[in-house]
């Protein structure tokens, strides 16, 4: 898990570093870094086995009742 995360981040940074350094656009840098930290943070939290709210549980709570009406 940690190995795959490291691999992902290294590949991502290697492919994106020239782009970010060339263009020097703040907004894209910010968006990239924000999303990266979000993804990495989620993976780290998962590896540490911190209980996290499940998105599919939310969807089940919303859509369970209409599903009982259908066949």
């Amino acid at each position, binding site marked *: 898990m940690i190995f*795959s995360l490291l691999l992902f981040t290294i590949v*991502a940074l290697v492919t994106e570093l020239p*782009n970010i350094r060339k263009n020097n656009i703040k907004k894209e840098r910010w968006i990239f870094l924000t999303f990266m930290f979000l993804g990495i943070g989620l993976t780290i939290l998962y590896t540490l086995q911190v209980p996290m709210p499940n998105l599919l549980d939310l969807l089940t709570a919303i859509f369970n009742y209409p599903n009982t009406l259908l066949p």
Partner: protein
Amino acid sequence: MQFFIISILFVVGDAILYVPSLIVQGASHTIWIAGLIGMGEAVLLSLLYALVSQQFTTKGFFPYLELTFGRWLGRIFFLLFLLYVMVDVILMIFEMGSFMVTVIMPETPLEAIIMVFLLVVIIGARLGLETLSRAAEVLFPWFCVFFFLLVCLNFPNAKFENMQPFFEGGIHTIVKGNVSLVSYIFESAILIVIFPYIREKDQAAKAYIKGITIGVTLLVIISLLSLLVFGFSTLKMELYPSYLLGQTLEFNFLSHVEVIMAVIWFISLFFKVAICFFVSAQGISQLVKIQDYRIVTFPIGIFLFALSFICIPSSMYLIHFINSTWLSYSITYGLLFPLFLLTVELIRKNRKSPRMNGR
């Protein structure tokens, strides 16, 4: 032509591995009726989606939503739609990893398989839609050849008595079986977003409708074949009956021919995941107003990778989720959302024409 191929691969996508078992649990012996009704529904639904996408062939899905509903409401709708696509991607990559770990490579950890697959999907999405469709054109003959081989070589094993008790449970079971098939057809609504990228606009709708119908036909053929070859009782116990179809083929010197079935499945699943990922990366880059979507692909890839483990603790949870929630979820985005868009468009046109007649 390329859109035709992509639609076929998209529909067959992940359904080819799950639909046979799902349909059999609903409609015991009447798979063929449920399948035929499913093909009709596929035609109707693809007509609906083609109609919806005619509204914005030049603009793009997000600008169209912003125009129709205003800035904030359009963005909220688009975000919810993107959420649907992303949940779809998460489910699919987990299904793929689960299949590999269960059947083909039981000793490899799940994360490694999902990571490798996601890397390839990210690279594919970064290369763009044109490259993806050309790759689909190249791989499609292989897909067809292996599919034909699978069907034809299994045909001697097919016993038609397995289809025997017709109408055993009545219409109720047919509807139940059909419902499992239809909830996968609704996912092809995601292709609406790709319509603006096609060059030959007038042929796009026809290619789309043909592609989806043929894709559903292929699914029905595989489900029917698995019923004919195995019989009802064996089929009910299996989680991956289409893979089992590959395992029944034995040659003298070739073993493990079932990997050919896995190749079919890999090709179609890869294109489905790559297109869905492309749609979500494009969507997020349009929401945040970035010019190039490629910068966002890797972060979204990591995000989805993390989510696929957080959201789906185990295979049983996935099966429970599909049985309990997936139908109404995909109906909301596959049926209600396009109908809603169409009705809003009709209301707008009716409002415009009385004004122009009055002047």
